[in-house]
């Protein structure tokens, strides 16, 4: 019994203004503080990001990212301290390795690797947070909605 996926047609209305859903993992000490500063500076940026605070970007298991995509995230942004500035010394070293492997894997199975982005944002870089948020949102808007949640199998 072969299951055949059917891709649900997106309505014209939805396509007219597609609002991406982006999960942004932020490390407590640098990037979350940076996001906080962006707020303190009253910088306006795309409201499409849902931040999830973790203590260190090294805490971000690849399964979090996979789960985010599975649950319908159109894009995932992983942010952390700059290399050498990690609050826990080497936590962010492994983040880069994990994201690199995952990007290649996603590309191989047909999910655009540009939907996953790694960015180092310091606590003082509120403007960088705004810039990255806006850029990434536009990038995902151009890529379109994630196709994962349109998968259905004829039972």
């Amino acid at each position, binding site marked *: 019994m072969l299951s055949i996926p059917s891709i649900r047609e997106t309505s014209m209305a939805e396509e007219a203004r597609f609002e991406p859903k982006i999960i942004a993992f932020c490390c407590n000490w640098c990037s979350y503080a940076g996001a906080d500063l962006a707020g303190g500076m009253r910088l306006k940026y795309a409201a499409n990001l849902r931040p999830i605070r973790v203590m260190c970007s090294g805490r971000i298991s690849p399964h979090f990212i996979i789960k985010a995509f*599975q649950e319908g995230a159109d894009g995932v942004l992983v942010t952390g301290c700059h290399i050498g500035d990690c609050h826990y010394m080497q936590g962010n070293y492994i983040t880069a390795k994990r994201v690199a492997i*995952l990007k290649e894997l996603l590309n191989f199975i047909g999910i655009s690797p540009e939907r996953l982005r790694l960015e180092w944002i310091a606590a003082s870089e509120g403007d960088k947070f705004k810039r990255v948020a806006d850029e990434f949102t536009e990038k995902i808007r151009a890529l379109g909605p994630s196709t994962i949640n349109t*998968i259905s199998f004829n039972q």
Partner: protein
Amino acid sequence: MDPLREKVKTLLQEKTISAFLGMKQDYDHAIPFLFTSPEGVESLIIGDARYPMAKIFPKIAHKYPDHHLGIMVRGCDEKALIELYRNHQLERSQVIPLGVACSGELAQKCNCPTPYPSQCIVGEAQERPFDRSALDTIESLSLEERFTYWTNQFGKCIKCYGCRNICPVCFCEVCTLEDKPLIPLGEIPPQVPSFHLSRAFHMAGRCIDCGLCEEGCPVDIPLRTLYRKVREVVKDLFDFLPGEEKEEEPPLHTLGDGTFKLK
């Protein structure tokens, strides 16, 4: 086969090893068996089929940590053992491997480029060209075509856990694929593509390309192609290939030194 039987008999007689894990001819069946007496070695065979020797071995070795044990290894079994040593699942000093090179037919069926271990008691070491055509075909497809292809393939999955159960380098006592928040219970096919994507990520730095997973898949999902891609990615990014006899830590075992940069 006789050189193998002679060697095993000698090792058992001299008590260099307490037992030898190999294949036994039992009426019309070829089964994995632990030979403990020199007399019993008469029924030792190599067999035409590949059984997961490196998966069975740690069960016996862990129960008898003070004994030296022999094991019949093909090329893939030897690579699996190297990875088990690297992950501290097996003590190298406890193991005495006896190498067997695979026949041309078996190597062909397995699409194996190196169907021989480092030292062969039986058989000749013959390299074969590596057939990358499956990977090439998939890489030539567009992103959307790849997505459709893999969604179809993963959609066949019946969640038998055969790929994980038979994998010689899968030794975790608590498996991520049984983690309810990640993979909800009661869904067939299991979360597409999370289930297979998670497993593929776990194979980074571990998969030795033995192909037992694809052989054990009841619905013929091209798992080996997927894990071969993971191996290539890890090799390109970190210059690490599991199964090689090198004193190296796999890239995801340590946090690292910060020199790795994302492109």
